[in-house]
């Protein structure tokens, strides 16, 4: 990094560093924050000044830091005449604003935050003007929007500030997104985002098919930022910001960002009809509308705001005209406007500060209270009005002379001189009104306090700025001349025209137009001045409330979005499932439609009559369950059990004994589980059903169609697959070949589960564990519906009977009911346990395995619960399912992890045959241990789920106070 690079970088880094520093200052550290900010701004200014020699001749210096090189995106800091000029403005006026703000801000405000935002904004603005890369430009552009939002909304307890901050943000950031898109298009046309390369590719850009969209997008960005009509509405609203912010944002920085981009890209975008039409008409409209509206403002800052709009329109118009001389005028006016507008805002702030009001109608005769401020304001206002010997006059004269040129040969050329004069007259009118109503006339009567001069240091910034106005106005060539020249040359390069900066060019048309405007404006004020105080809003524009349109648009967006969200989305489950199934069916169908449905040529197996009978039963059960599930839950449950049994039988038929066993056991447990749940569900019967809506049959028809389509689809897919030969080299061949030699098991299915793909099993038992834990956690907070809190009807009747009968106690019916079954079920318990152990041990070789064994064991446990009741079982058995889950999981994991100790991959099984004395050859597979983990976990998880639900019945409701 060279020295210049370092300098460039520090210009950019300084404000941000200062901002972060300021953010961490204590809330009361007013002076420290101001001092820090001022120092940063001044330091930046000095750095920029030091670099002037490098750019004086119109060339650029660059510093580059790689950022995302593969996307062609680097952080390029590029300083040339134009950016030097803008940087100086940003930093110079920034320093003055800091000084001013130190006195302006109230001690109650969290001032360090203000300065932090201000510095960050300064940095963003510098980043913008110093960008040597289009993406970087958009990047800092959005940052300025962001920080201006924070600055405008600084007094966020104030509703107006919040609203206007949001409006500014949405307008400018939205425009920023357009600009972003635009520069991306530009980059796409050029093939690089680098500014130098883009600037060198003007012809390529203008001839590209993407020129139109790119131009439009960039212009939207620039116009929103620079408050061009019709995007101007945010700017007057932004006056809710503290005055230093207005002074900064609306003179030298924020609004000039749009102008800056227009100037920056002027060489490559202008010189086309599109540019001319869009830019100059927007500028002209803004110029007139802004000036016209400014006349009718009653708020000091509002007047200045509209005047700003108008001046921005002027600059835009100049740029739109497309001639190099107009561009020079535009750049010149940027500087002039910044100086006089900043000072005017500051003066307005002082007036507000001292009188407590900004209402022109209530202000009067302040000259006698604050003569210095008044004088300064008058000079600045004169500059704004374009009075000779002031800088505003010079650039305005350039503008007027440009307006006389022919640019397009259309009617605009003829109208332009008149309109320019008219706009100038407006400017004179509002400037005169500003000064006269504020400082002259009788002393004010309705003020809360007696105004006086502002503190000495608060006036200094204004004094400096006004001095600049005067100096530039009187000796332009010696002051602004060289700077302007380097800026102009950096933009226009070889096309730089010759121009002269002088006060006096003789009695020319522009001079006459200026004079005419001055006279016209003054007369108009004298004639209509009083009337202006009585108006509310500008005539002609009054009905055109962009602000209201904006708010309305936002509100409409929100409500339209809500309507659309309801239309396009839903929060109900049924439509979601309908869509889900529909999409799935469609997805499955599309490839079939494309390739055609075909059956394979494999010869099928002969239909077994028994199998067909069984499936007739199974299908009937499934359909019956679907039919009855609404009002006859128990029936549906029983029918589903039938369907499950059928699928279990088919697994047996189709040579999958493991599946049959598993399905069977799971079936049983599921039945018990669902039955446990039934107790807590509300009674339903067809008699109580609510009336159905008109859409009801239609929805049922749709559902039926989806159901049939899904069934048909899956059935056809299955059939298509079944008629095809299986893939020749399926991986399962390996499993069958290696199961016994390598893994020591003859039941390939089980070997896959505990060895080849034991990782799946580990995941599967984890799911089981998680679900069990979730069920357990959920049921701890379970609160039944009030009507199901009591005993079921059967129990109440039976208890009542027991109670009424002499010689019986409550509960006798139950005891009698279960007496015999309980004995039998108790004695079955050890046998089922033995069976479970058997199923586990033999799993590796024959159907069985940890899961099957675990469910069997859990069933044994559940039988005990059913026979003896929860309390009785738990008094006798140590039931700790959560711990079992933990142990099982740990066992499985540790068995798998043991392989790691010897450097084998996780879950590598150890297998060999041991020759034990008594036993003979005994297989010793670590997979068995893994399966034990599965076994223990499954027992725990299954038991936990069932028991957790069962426990709900024996919980004791809290006796509530006040209830008998």
């Amino acid at each position, binding site marked *: 990094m060279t020295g210049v690079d370092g300098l460039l970088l520090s210009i950019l880094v300084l404000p941000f560093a200062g901002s972060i520093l300021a953010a961490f200052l204590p809330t009361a550290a007013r002076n420290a924050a101001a001092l820090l900010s001022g120092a940063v701004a001044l330091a930046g200014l000095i750095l920029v000044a030091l670099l002037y020699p490098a750019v004086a001749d119109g060339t650029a210096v660059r510093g580059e830091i790689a950022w995302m090189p593969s996307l062609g995106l680097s952080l390029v800091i590029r300083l040339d005449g134009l950016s030097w000029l803008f940087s100086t403005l940003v930093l110079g006026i920034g320093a003055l604003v800091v000084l001013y703000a130190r006195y302006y801000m109230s001690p109650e405000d969290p001032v360090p935050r203000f300065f932090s935002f201000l510095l960050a904004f300064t940095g963003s603005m510098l980043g913008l003007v110093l960008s040597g890369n289009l993406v970087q430009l958009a990047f800092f552009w959005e940052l300025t929007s962001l920080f201006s939002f924070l600055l405008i909304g600084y007094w966020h307890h104030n509703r107006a500030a919040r609203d206007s901050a949001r409006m500014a943000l949405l307008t400018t950031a939205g425009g920023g997104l357009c600009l972003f898109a635009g520069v991306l298009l530009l980059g796409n046309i050029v093939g690089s985002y680098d500014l130098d390369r883009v600037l060198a590719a003007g012809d390529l850009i203008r001839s590209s098919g993407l020129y139109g969209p790119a131009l439009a997008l960039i212009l939207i960005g620039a116009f929103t930022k620079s408050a061009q009509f019709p995007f101007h509405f945010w700017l007057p609203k932004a006056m809710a910001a503290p005055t230093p912010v207005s002074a900064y944002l609306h003179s030298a920085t924020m609004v000039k960002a749009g102008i800056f981009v227009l100037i920056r890209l002027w060489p490559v975008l202008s010189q086309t009809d599109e540019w001319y039409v869009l830019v100059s008409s927007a500028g002209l409209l803004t110029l007139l509308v802004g000036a016209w509206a400014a006349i009718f403002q009653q708020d000091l800052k509002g007047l200045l705001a509209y005047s700003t709009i108008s001046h921005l329109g002027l600059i835009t118009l100049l740029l739109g005209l497309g001639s190099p001389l107009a561009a020079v005028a535009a750049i010149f006016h940027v500087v002039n406007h910044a100086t006089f507008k900043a000072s005017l805002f500051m003066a307005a702030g002082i007036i507000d500060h001292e009188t407590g009001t900004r209402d022109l109608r209530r202000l009067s005769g302040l000259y006698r209270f604050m003569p210095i401020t008044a004088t300064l304001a008058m000079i600045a206002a004169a500059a704004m009005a374009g009075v000779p010997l002031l800088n505003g006059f010079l650039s305005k004269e350039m503008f007027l002379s440009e307006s006389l040129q022919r640019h397009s040969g259309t009617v605009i050329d003829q109208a332009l001189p008149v309109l320019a004069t008219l706009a100038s007259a407006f400017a004179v009118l509002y400037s005169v009104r500003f000064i006269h109503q504020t400082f002259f006339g009788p002393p004010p009567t309705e003020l809360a306090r007696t105004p006086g001069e502002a503190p000495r240091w608060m006036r200094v910034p204004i004094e400096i700025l006004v001095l600049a106005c005067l100096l530039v106005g009187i000796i332009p060539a010696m002051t602004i001349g060289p700077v302007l020249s380097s800026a102009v040359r950096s933009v226009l390069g070889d096309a730089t025209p010759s121009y002269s900066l002088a006060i006096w060019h003789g009695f020319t048309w522009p001079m006459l137009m200026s004079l005419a405007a001055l006279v016209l404006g003054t007369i108009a004020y004298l004639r209509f001045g009083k009337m202006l105080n009585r108006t509310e809003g500008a005539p002609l524009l009054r009905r055109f409330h962009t602000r209201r349109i904006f708010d309305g648009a936002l509100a409409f967006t929100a409500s339209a979005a809500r309507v659309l969200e309801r239309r396009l989305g839903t929060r109900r489950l049924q439509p979601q499932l309908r869509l889900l199934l529909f999409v799935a069916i469609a997805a499955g169908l599309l490839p079939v439609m494309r390739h055609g449905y075909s059956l394979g040529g494999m010869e099928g197996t002969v239909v077994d009559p028994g199998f067909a009978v069984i499936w007739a039963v199974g299908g009937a059960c499934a359909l019956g369950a679907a039919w009855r599930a609404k009002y006859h839950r128990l029936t549906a449950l029983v029918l589903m059990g039938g369907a499950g049994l059928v699928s279990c039988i088919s697994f047996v038929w189709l040579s999958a004994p493991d599946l049959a066993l598993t399905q069977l056991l799971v079936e049983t447990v599921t039945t018990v589980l669902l039955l446990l749940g039934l107790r807590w569900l509300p009674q339903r019967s067809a008699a109580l059903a609510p009336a159905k809506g008109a859409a009801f049959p239609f929805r049922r028809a749709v559902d039926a169609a989806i159901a049939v389509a899904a069934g048909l689809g899956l059935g056809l897919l299955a059939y298509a697959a079944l008629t095809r030969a299986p893939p020749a080299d399926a991986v399962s061949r390996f499993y069958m070949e290696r199961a016994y030699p390598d893994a020591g098991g003859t039941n390939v299915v089980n070997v896959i589960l505990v060895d080849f793909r034991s990782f799946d099993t580990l995941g599967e038992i984890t799911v089981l564990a998680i679900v069990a834990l979730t069920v357990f956690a959920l049921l701890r907070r379970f609160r039944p519906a009030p009507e199901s809190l009591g005993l079921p009807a059967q129990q109440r009747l039976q208890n009542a009977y027991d109670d009424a009968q002499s010689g019986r106690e409550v509960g006798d019916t139950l005891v*009698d009911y279960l007496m015999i079954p309980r004995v039998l079920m108790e*004695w079955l*318990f050890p046998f089922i*346990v033995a069976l479970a152990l*058997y199923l586990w041990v033999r799993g590796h070789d024959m159907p069985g395995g940890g899961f099957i064994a675990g469910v069997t064991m859990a069933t044994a446990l559940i039988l005990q619960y059913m026979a003896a009741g929860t309390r009785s079982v738990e008094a006798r058995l*140590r039931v700790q399912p959560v711990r079992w889950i933990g142990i099982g999981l740990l066992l499985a994991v540790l068995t798998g992890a043991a392989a790691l100790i010897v450097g084998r991959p996780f879950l590598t099984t150890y297998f060999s045959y041991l020759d*034990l004395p*008594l036993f003979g050859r*005994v297989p010793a597979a670590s997979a068995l241990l893994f399966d034990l983990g599965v076994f223990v976990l499954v027992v725990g998880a299954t038991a936990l789920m069932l028991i957790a639900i069962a426990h709900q019945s024996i919980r004791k409701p809290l006796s509530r106070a006040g209830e008998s």
Partner: protein
Amino acid sequence: MKRLLPHPLLALGILLMWLLLTASLSPGQLVLGAIVAVLGSHAMAALQPEDAGIRSVRPIPRLAAIVFADIVRSNVAVARIVLLRDRPERVSGFVRLPLDMRSRYGLTVLACIITATPGTIWVEFDRRANVLVVHVLDLVDPDAWIRETKHRYERPLMEIFG
């Protein structure tokens, strides 16, 4: 011994089951079966069942034979009812059977016998009154049926369980 092997008969049963399951008499399976049997009997002990209190085993074979014969006979009887044209005069109904036996295990076996025999089913039992309600498919003479049942099943069971 009691603590090591709480239910020796049960353990034997489990061992037998294990051997049947594995279809092997190898020493390895014997040991494994023994382990399982001990585990199983401990599981049973944890449930703390009432003591069976078998008093005599002599009547068992005779009872078994009677039961088997009855099952075969009633199978045929029920099959006839199902298959052939049902007699219109056939009545089925509930019979109230007062019992003398009190042993839970005796009652359990009785329940199994009655229910396993086609044509009769154990429906309801009142512990305090010691009365049993049985549903009989082909009820000709309730009193005779009661007498026969008490004689054929209850007496030997009372001999066994007391």
